[in-house]
């Protein structure tokens, strides 16, 4: 519940303030968002199965974001930034899909 409210608050604040993304961060922000979405869907899935662990959620959230950003950074340094970030998005997207499928199975038993 808190998480849902926090999400809404974050979105509202983000839209209300309309901050500009620093140029240096603009390549990382979308990847970080996708990574965080993966962590959050994983957390919801665990929550629904009563497997949720706050510490693990926090750590996976942060590490997901950091690793994703690191990969993009590394890709940029290696000159394959576009391809690597595409790869990261694909992998994270698959994970999000898997998580959502698990959530769906838990909630609707289908």
């Amino acid at each position, binding site marked *: 519940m808190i998480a849902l409210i926090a999400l809404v608050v*974050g979105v*509202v604040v983000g839209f209300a303030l309309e901050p500009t993304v620093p140029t240096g961060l603009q390549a990382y922000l979308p990847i970080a968002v996708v990574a965080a979405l993966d962590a959050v869907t994983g957390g919801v899935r665990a929550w629904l199965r009563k497997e949720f662990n706050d*510490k693990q959620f926090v750590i*996976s959230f942060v590490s997901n974001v950091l690793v994703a950003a690191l990969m993009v950074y590394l890709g940029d340094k290696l000159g394959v930034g576009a391809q690597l970030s595409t790869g990261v998005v694909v992998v994270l997207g698959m994970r999000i899909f898997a*998580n959502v499928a698990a959530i769906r199975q838990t909630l609707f038993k289908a």
Partner: protein
Amino acid sequence: MADHQEPNDAGTDPAASPQQPESPERPDQSPTEDSAEPRAGTDDPRADEPRDDAAGEAGRDELPPVRWWTHRLPRRSAALIGVLVALLGFALAVQVNSNDSDQALAGARQEDLVRILDTLDSRKERLQQEIASLNSQRQQISSTEQGRAEALKEARQRADDLGILAGTLPAEGPGLSVVFSGGKDGVGASVLLDAVEELRGAGAEAMQVEGSSGGAVRIVASTAFVDGSGRAVLVDGNRLSAPLTLSVIGDGSTMQAALNIPGGVVDTVRQAGGRVSVRQPSVVQVSVTRSAPAARYARPVS
């Protein structure tokens, strides 16, 4: 992992309520959960997905109805999670916002920018080619138009010139008016012809001859002068009697000089007892016209 954990879960829940009635779902359970859950955690869904599903189906049957809304967390973790998720929402909104705006270019990667630049460059080139071709087309059209107008003007001018030359158009301009009053022989055709030749040589452009009777005749290239009976001259079949008035358009002084040279027309007529008076009015009218004969045999070569 899941089958390892779910019996555990199923075991703790019923066990907790009888043993510790005051704290059914409290953080003091978390040590056991902590140790069990990381292995079945959120981090590797792909690895345990098939087994998870199978275990989930099996476990749900044994478990009491899912009561996820009663799941409680320590306040600090909840706050932390809240902050993280809020951060996610914030970043999401910011990203969506910045993607909406034009600033997307500012953070684009170098290769993307290069690609975009390439695309724009080639597009610009295409458009420039189009501009050039359209420009040349326009130029062509306007030059054609201009050329047509020019040609039309020239043709008109030429038609005017030819009309004056052929005697189909009336003309006026500076020139001379020469009156021949015959002596006892009158004015012969040869004198008139000499005068006409002399005037042509001096640059006469249009001529007509008028007798005191018989009207006026335009003098053109094919005009014939024949001595007629009774001191008259037949000009193109028109019988003109003296005195004859020759109206000439051209450079007056030159023509006057040409007529007055010793042994010239004026001299000849005077020796024959006639009189010639040359006037130079400001405007000479050559008003008589004749129709140009259509060429029956000659065709232009082009």
